[in-house]
């Protein structure tokens, strides 16, 4: 797997735009459509904001985002943090049928990641959360 780009910054909201810009540029360089790039930006934001909010609690820590390509077949955004173990894929899906009063927003971010990406994998490895957002380059 070829690493196209890596960026490591403190896991804070103020770095969201820098991280998303990097992911977006990598996706564009893979020749992905504007629509697909937009979907990738949304999925990456949802994953990153979860880390900003929950990974390190009151402490500080970094998040590392790498763009990778696999034999021209798959584009992969790998997001790594050293925070609390957190498997976003284990978050229960929200009930999207409730009305305004009862509706909660929790879980929508993870739902968007799952629906917008071709594949998502999570593993906990040596104190790291490793989340991979996978986009097929060939239909």
């Amino acid at each position, binding site marked *: 797997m070829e690493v196209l780009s890596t960026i490591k910054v403190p896991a804070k909201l103020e770095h*969201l735009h820098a991280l998303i810009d990097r992911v977006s540029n990598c996706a564009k360089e893979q020749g992905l459509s504007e*629509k697909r790039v*937009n979907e990738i930006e*949304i999925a990456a934001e949802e994953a990153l904001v979860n880390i900003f909010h929950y990974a390190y609690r009151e402490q500080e820590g970094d998040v590392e985002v790498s763009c990778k390509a696999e034999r021209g077949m798959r584009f992969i955004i790998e997001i790594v943090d050293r925070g609390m173990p957190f498997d976003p894929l284990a978050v229960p899906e929200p009930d*999207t*049928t409730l009305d*305004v009063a009862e509706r909660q*927003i929790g879980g929508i971010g993870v*739902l968007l990641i799952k629906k917008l990406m071709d594949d998502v994998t999570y593993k906990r490895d040596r104190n790291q959360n490793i989340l991979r957002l996978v986009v097929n380059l060939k239909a």
Partner: protein
Amino acid sequence: MEITSRQEKNTTVVTVQGRIDAVTAPEFENYLSDLISKGGRSFIVNLSALEYISSAGLRSILATAKKLKAEQGDIRFSGLQGPVEEVFKISGFYSIFKIFDSDASALNNA
């Protein structure tokens, strides 16, 4: 993100352009909150020039809608397209909100 609003009889039409993400969503929510605290109860939010929305944006919309419901107010949406339409569909927002093609049809269906 750029937000503008205009008054159509007793309805405020809010147009939001650009991107509503985790950074800009609080500003969007505050903008609507201000209009509600000034007495606004009927809103149409035009999303035809919105390029991007994440769950942070959905959260601000839902918070606004809950506020309005408590005041017997109403919020409708117009002009959804592209990724914004897709995000609304995935999130089930089509089943909880009134969504119209244009401001005109939203105004006619108050």
